[in-house]
């Protein structure tokens, strides 16, 4: 398992290639990548991501360990960035390896659902008009009930 909370960008191709390299027991690898989305108005200058150093790594590890308990998984990777990002920048990725795709897909969805509302990150959208904290969505909280 690798959990990385980092400011610098990551190379999606290199991370995906390196993930579970040499593991011939698992036939399915799922990767998900989150990208900074511009506002509908096209006005987003910067997305600032704040986090809680100390708690972040621990919370992500706990979420990934829970996924490993629930599904039969090989390796798990979570990368999440913080700091100032621009529209189109990659914010985060998760990758899961499993013998079969169902476990890999479900575990990746689980990781994403929990990471959205249980990992201590907060997003702020900065435009020329000012800055606004992104509000948590009820549907993100509701998504946890299916697990």
């Amino acid at each position, binding site marked *: 398992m690798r959990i990385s909370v980092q400011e610098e960008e990551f190379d999606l191709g290199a991370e995906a290639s390196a993930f579970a390299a040499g593991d011939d027991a698992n036939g399915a690898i799922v990767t998900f990548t989150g990208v900074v989305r511009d506002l509908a108005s096209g006005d987003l200058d910067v997305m600032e991501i704040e986090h*809680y150093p100390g708690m972040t790594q621990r919370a992500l590890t706990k979420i990934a360990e829970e996924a490993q308990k629930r599904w039969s998984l090989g390796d798990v990777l979570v990368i999440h960035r913080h700091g100032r990002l621009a529209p189109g920048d990659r914010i985060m990725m998760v990758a899961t390896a499993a013998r079969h795709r169902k476990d890999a897909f479900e575990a990746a969805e689980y990781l994403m659902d929990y990471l*959205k509302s249980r990992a201590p*990150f907060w997003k702020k959208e900065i435009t020329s008009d000012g800055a606004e904290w*992104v*509000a*948590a969505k009820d549907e993100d909280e509701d998504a946890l009930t299916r697990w």
Partner: protein
Amino acid sequence: MDVLYFAWVRERIGLPKEKVETQAATVSDLVAELSAREDRYAAAFADLSALRVALDQELSDFDASLAGVREVAFFPPMTGG
């Protein structure tokens, strides 16, 4: 104990972290103490349903005991991913 604030809670209170000497038994008691200090605290803690709390870096709730706790953090619902 150390009390930490994140996101708009940090902005409203005006600092990221402070040391607080308190005899508060629970998180709610601590919130009441802080809110009584100054308007900026009262404003930040006005609606607890809009806040989350972590005790020693684990998510917790406002009824939880502070016995033995060294670090309390207040923040809005998280928006990762």
